[in-house]
């Protein structure tokens, strides 16, 4: 019993500690990066249970803000190899289990 209790606590701890957005890779300029990151966080929090809607929201917002042809992938597990325009890629983790990849390629 004690063991499971500890495990739960650890898990909660992990969830709490790992909830911040962690940028894994990006070549965006500072301002754009911050804005994109905030947008991703907002979208993922707004559509916590629906990655598709979140991705859609991010894509549409990015298209509006930074011009068209943005692509967004959100998921808990995926692999990718993408071609992107230089200075237009952001790959980040969020909420401990989500990976978000945002890039621009027309």
């Amino acid at each position: 019993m004690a063991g499971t209790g500890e495990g739960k606590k650890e898990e909660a701890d992990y969830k709490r500690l790992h909830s911040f957005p962690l940028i894994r890779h990006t070549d965006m300029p500072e301002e754009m990066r911050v804005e994109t990151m905030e947008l991703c966080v907002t979208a993922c929090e707004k559509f916590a249970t629906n990655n598709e809607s979140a991705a859609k929201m991010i894509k549409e917002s990015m298209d509006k803000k930074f011009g068209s042809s943005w692509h967004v992938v959100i998921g808990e597990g995926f692999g990718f190899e993408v071609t992107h325009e230089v200075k237009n890629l952001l790959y980040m983790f969020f909420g401990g289990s989500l990976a978000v990849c945002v890039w621009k390629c027309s």
Partner: protein
Amino acid sequence: EDDFGDYGWEERTHGKLTKPADQLDLTEAELKEEVTRILTAENPHAPQNIVRYSFKEGAFKLTSVVDQLAVHFVLDGCLIHQDSDEARRLAANGGEDEDAGEDDRPDSVASKTNEQEPKCTNQFNFIERASQTLNNALRDRSCQTVPPPRCNYSATATQWEIYDAYTEELQKQEMKKDKQRAFQIKKDGDQNKKKILNETPNDDITPMAMPVTLLERMVNQNTCNDIAQDFKYFEDAADEYREQEGTLLPLWKFQYDKAKWMCVTALCWNEKYPDLFGVALGSYDFSKQGRGMLLFYTLKNSTFPEYIFPTGSGALSLDIHKRNSYLVAAGFYDGCVCVYNLKKKGPEPEYKSNAKTGKHTDPVWQVRWQNDDMDNKHNFYSVSSDGRVVSWTLIKNELVFSDTIRLTVADPDVGGTCFDFHKQTDSLFVVGTEEGKIHKCSKNYSSQFLETYAAHNMAVDAVKWNPYHPKVFISCSSDWTIKIWDHTVNTPMFTFELNAPVADVAWAPHSSTSFAAVTTEGLVHVFDLSINKYQAICQQPVVAKNKTKLTHIEFNPVHPIIIVGDDRGSVISLKLSPNLRKKPKGKKGQELPEGPEVETAKMEKLLNLLRDSEQSSVK
């Protein structure tokens, strides 16, 4: 029958009867015997025993009906009967076939189709004609831009990778915190050591100084917004209904807690930054001498001084250099003169006179910067109760002195209290003394006075040359009077009695005929001789009458405000109402000339009036 006949004939012609080989040999009798034969329609060769399998009965059955016909010879002929159907049909077809046969040629098909649809055109005026215009030559043009640079990126997102990334990041953060903590502990340790060494906690906020100053000014601007508005925009509307009198509007009050018990002993505006002024604090009470202080306030921040220089002895005089506004000369009760540099940090003066370098032996009542000398060295003058007027020159890191004049030449006990240098003639200056005389001196003659005026009955508190008119200076004294002099005449041109000791007087920078004075009773008097030659156009108490004395007054060189200092260490700024800075009225539509010449002329006119009246009274 014919055929048989032919056949018989041929055999006969051969002459002999040929017998078949198998012919029976019969006797005559047998030949003659009559054999009766009945001919039937039955074929003797037809088989009588044909059986067929009957599926119905499941057994072979004898077929009873047998074909009895035997055909021996068949020949189809080419002739047909004339009356038969076929002959008639052939006869009918044959006639048509003969016609068709003549037309049957290869081109017959084409001719037949042409004939089928003849074209209908207007047969009267139909002309068929066509032409083709020249088409412009087609041309292709294209260019290709460089596409925005691209690159590839690939990664894999899995739960364990995300977990690892987060763990790594957290560890990094932890490390950073640890480092900071270690650094802080180290710092603390250092500080502790320092504390042990000199017991002064290091609360250095220099990196924050600039933003904090800004913020302080912003807060002050907010809290004193109404005063700032008054300073900039308020004009006393009541002045229009008064004839000559004006009023003073109190603006900011500058106070500093540590200087509360001290007395303002000098005021000086900064010429370069007209919102900045210096205050010297000390004591005029000779039984209560102590520490002094130099403070620099700005109008932008009335709550706290910009610069603070605590001094060991009471400061009695102060002057800010006109061009190098960071240089401040100060004179002290103990006879020292110092030069402070506002650019340098720390409370210590940059230059200080000492006993070796000819310091005064009595309080220094006034210091005044002069134009740089021929070697471009900064220099200033000081006057003291010990009767010397000394010139100080800043050379490298020391003050070099030279006595300009000794007031003791005439009387060994006399001490100077104030002086002022002529605005145009550099060498000319007047010195006020403790006994009430004013001497006109020159820097060039150290042993004698050019002139001596028996001006006052008590110590002269201030002498000031008029900023416009080269001959006129003003003096005030504790004997309640202000006197205006033409330095070529040894009697005063004007005398005003203010019914209280006059602590200070100052010419207004905007007019040659306007000046202001403060009395120890707490009144500010503003005069404009061009408006009223006999009375002040403004007399206003600015502090509580019995408690506080006013000690000094200065006009701001740019803005229409004055500052007055009192003996409780505070400085009050006051705005002159429109009547107090009124220009003389011209005739309607007439442009009023402006400038120093006009101001000089204005003063000259006044003086002439006086001279005339004097002459007439003499006559």
